[in-house]
């Protein structure tokens, strides 16, 4: 640790202690990697100097790049968008490593003991239809979901009726309010009632979010040893926030894409419930062979999680536009509306790329070049998208927990 004068502070340095303002508020916390704007703020506020950590370069930029590249072995390295996503991912890996993150080695990345788990079906015995049927016969889906769905379908449902319905569920309304107050909406003043949330973001929009939360909550009770649930939720929510940001840029309804992003891997949740051992084998196979998970599922199960969600979402009568985006996120140009498919496809790929620095262990799926063209974006836009994402994500995640 060393006290460094502000005029000598450089971006990339790591804070060893909190930086306080004159009135004692914490400006920046220890561990932060300084960026140019931090330095600017320090100068503007006239902070004399800060404690800088003397961090040994445990991970070199080359190592960070190699580590990241290993997750990009399934993608076309010559596609400019993938090149940009690689830069973004490697940057995040290196940044986290400078804060002391030790890059997981091959062994820790693969270790997992699920020997006590049994599948409901034997090898080759289960089709997506049978898997879904086994679930729907066992448990009924929450009534609230179907009432929300009814209102979404009916052009006559009033704002008041929807607000009343949602307010009737304490857990759901609390979560929705936290979401509406999070940076993805960033209201000027706090929203403290469902009725106000409806006026702020719209009746159908709020109902769409409520529908997604109700659907995903259905799986809330998956035993934690089945799958690392925090990682799963983090990936789902990353995809949701990215899909929402992308949708706004595309002029598509943001709430639909948030909800679709949240549920894009819902088929995997059901696979975990019914075939815990086989899905774990698929994960191991994916890691060992540097394959994206859905490819490993196809090899081991002869179908993938989108084949399961196709049946499941149809059973739930999930709104078709969202179901299409979810079911075709690995095959976007086959969706009824390719632009929607492409949006969720890119959001998922970006979520996988961003996830590498969070310890994600699966190969990033390849970008369908036609889907990329469909979106009419420049690779450089991906950088600004990620800046926007970073400004919103952690607080949105907190709202969700």
């Amino acid at each position: 640790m060393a006290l460094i004068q502000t005029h000598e502070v450089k971006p990339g340095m790591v804070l060893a202690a909190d930086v306080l303002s004159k009135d004692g508020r914490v400006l920046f916390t220890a561990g932060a990697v300084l960026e140019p704007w931090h330095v600017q703020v320090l100068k503007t506020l006239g902070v004399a100097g800060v404690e800088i950590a003397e961090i040994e370069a445990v991970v070199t930029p080359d190592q960070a790049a190699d580590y990241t590249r290993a997750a990009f072995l399934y993608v076309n390295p010559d596609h400019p968008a993938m090149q940009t996503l690689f830069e973004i991912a490697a940057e995040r890996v290196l940044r986290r490593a400078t804060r002391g993150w030790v890059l997981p080695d091959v062994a820790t990345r693969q270790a997992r003991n699920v020997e006590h788990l049994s599948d409901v079906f034997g090898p080759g015995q289960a089709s997506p239809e049978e898997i879904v049927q086994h679930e729907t016969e066992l448990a009924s889906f929450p009534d609230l979901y179907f009432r929300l769905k009814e209102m979404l379908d009916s052009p006559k449902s009033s704002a008041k009726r929807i607000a009343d319905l949602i307010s009737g569920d304490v857990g759901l309304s609390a979560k929705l309010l936290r979401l509406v107050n999070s940076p993805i909406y960033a209201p000027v003043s706090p929203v403290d009632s469902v009725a106000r949330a409806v006026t702020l973001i719209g009746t159908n929009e709020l109902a769409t979010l409520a529908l997604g939360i109700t659907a995903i909550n259905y799986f809330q009770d998956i035993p934690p040893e089945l799958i690392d649930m925090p990682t799963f939720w983090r990936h789902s929510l990353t995809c949701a926030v990215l899909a929402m940001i992308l949708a706004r840029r595309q002029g598509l309804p943001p709430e639909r894409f948030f909800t679709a992003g949240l549920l894009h891997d819902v088929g995997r949740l059901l696979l975990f419930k019914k075939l815990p051992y086989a899905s774990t084998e698929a994960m191991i196979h994916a890691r060992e062979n540097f394959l994206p998970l859905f490819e490993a599922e196809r090899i081991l199960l002869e179908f993938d999680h989108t084949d399961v969600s196709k049946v499941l979402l149809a059973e739930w009568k999930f709104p078709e536009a969202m179901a299409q985006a979810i079911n075709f996120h690995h095959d976007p140009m086959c969706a009824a509306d390719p632009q929607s498919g492409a949006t969720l496809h890119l959001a998922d790929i970006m979520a996988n790329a961003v996830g590498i620095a969070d310890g994600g262990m699966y190969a990033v799926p390849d970008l369908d070049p036609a889907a990329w063209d469909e979106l009419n974006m420049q690779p450089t836009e991906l950088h600004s998208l990620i800046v926007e994402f970073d400004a919103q994500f952690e607080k949105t995640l907190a709202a969700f927990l």
Partner: protein
Amino acid sequence: MTLFSSSMTLRAATPISDAEFKELRDFIYQRSGIWVDEKRKYLFENRFHKRLATLGLKSFDEYVKLLKFDPRSAEEMKTLWEIITTNETSFFRDIKQLESFQKVILGEVLAEQRKKGKLELNIWSAGCSSGEEPYTLAMLISESLGLELPKWKVLISAVDLSPAMIAKAKEATYGDYAFKTTTEEQKKKFFVPEGANFKVKPELARMVSFQQMNLNDDAAVRRVPKSQIVFCRNVIIYFDDAMRTKVARAFYDNLLSGGYLLLGHSETLHKISTAFRPKFIPGAMAYRKD
């Protein structure tokens, strides 16, 4: 603002052309039966990049020529198998399958041998990787036979394509990773500590005989001693249907009548072979040669 002082590129390897990829893929398939999907082209570029550099080759075309026509070919094949195989395995992997195997299949086979007055047991572990699977089988057998063990002649023929894996298997010494599906109890019972590692007890290791072998090599496969039990787990997923059919046939020919074939958790003989009679055992499927 970036922490990288220079820009880095995603592409780090010599590109492989479509024609070169097809040639290499077909070569690998003809030799080993391992089928590499087109989508794994970039993985190939990456995997072989260092090898090409070490050999001082400028293109994949030169590499394929070396494999096909060069006097160094036989030597290079060993490295090739190392590069293209994946060897994930661990002791007591898929314990549910192993427990039912021990109770139902092994129990039946041992009883049958006793009835015949032939205290002999032959097992073939095909695609044994670094040896965890055949050693696990030796452990299950010693558990089932107990004090009877010295009276029996047990032979587990364990083969794998990768020479590196066979060499590792022969050492019989393992680190943490091999034990991720093993309990402390099993570890204490069947291993002796050796530094930070653990070594398979010699009386168990003695049952297993390792050999580098290509399951696509008909003559070599025919030389494997006839067995009562064949284990081939998590190997045929790397093959195409034609090769799967071929090895299923080889296992059938190798098995004595009344013998059993066991596959990996997600593998079936569905669409591959109808010669066997499938038999459900809790947590798994066994295939019987009647």
